């Protein structure tokens, strides 16, 4: 019953596209899976694409924020891409600031940004 979010590896980057409504268990499982995958693959960057996510509550925001900090502890950079207008509006109104988080409009821009960051 435990659903897992697929994590793809492309060269030195992990790519995740979240396309389902995240329940608590799936979100926490994703956190663990992503960190394990970073460890296994020695990837240096992660792109988490949220194009298909239509709302983010404080719990999902916390899980995302935590996974970014955890990845950073392991030496990897994370870019969040594809945040929908409705999601951006509700996150700010709710009072959640994802500070110091690298973001990009879409997956393509996110990969470019990550590449620049990793080369720097």
């Amino acid at each position, binding site marked *: 019953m435990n659903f897992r979010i697929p994590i793809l590896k492309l060269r030195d980057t992990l790519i995740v596209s979240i396309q389902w409504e995240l329940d*608590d268990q799936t979100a926490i499982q994703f956190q663990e899976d992503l960190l394990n995958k970073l460890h296994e693959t020695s990837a240096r960057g992660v792109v988490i694409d949220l194009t298909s996510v239509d*709302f983010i*509550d404080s719990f999902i925001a*916390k899980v995302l924020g935590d996974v970014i900090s955890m990845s950073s502890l392991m030496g990897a950079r994370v870019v969040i891409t594809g945040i929908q207008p*409705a999601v951006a509006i509700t996150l700010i109104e*709710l*009072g959640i600031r994802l500070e110091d988080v690298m973001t990009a409009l879409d997956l393509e821009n996110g990969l470019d940004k990550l590449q620049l960051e990793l080369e720097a």
Partner: protein
Amino acid sequence: MSNQSSVEILTEWDIVAARQLGRNVAKELGFGTVDQARITTAISELARNIYLYAGQGRIEIQRLTENGVKGILIIAADNGPGIPDIRKVMEDGFSTSGGLGAGLPGVKRLMDDFRIETILGEGTDIRATKWLR
């Protein structure tokens, strides 16, 4: 006309069920994607508060019509410990659960109308409304 439906909040899965119910009703009423996200998020926060602080309770979704304007009413009710200091929980940045839950001020901002009644030892009743413009 007031058409209602509700979800009992006992486990974290019920938080998902409550927000799905709310989103479906919001969609049916004709709310746009931004308001749907506001309503879904508000329900998720209120349901999580019940789960975290009261252990169990209920989210009720009502369709409203007032002077020809449609709206959605979220009722979050529990028989939990109640809130000792409402003024404090309505301050931005105050959360007793270690950062989890942006709290009630966030929910208030997402909705048009927000009312809270709480009695220590008896429970809390929160009503939040969004009108269709």
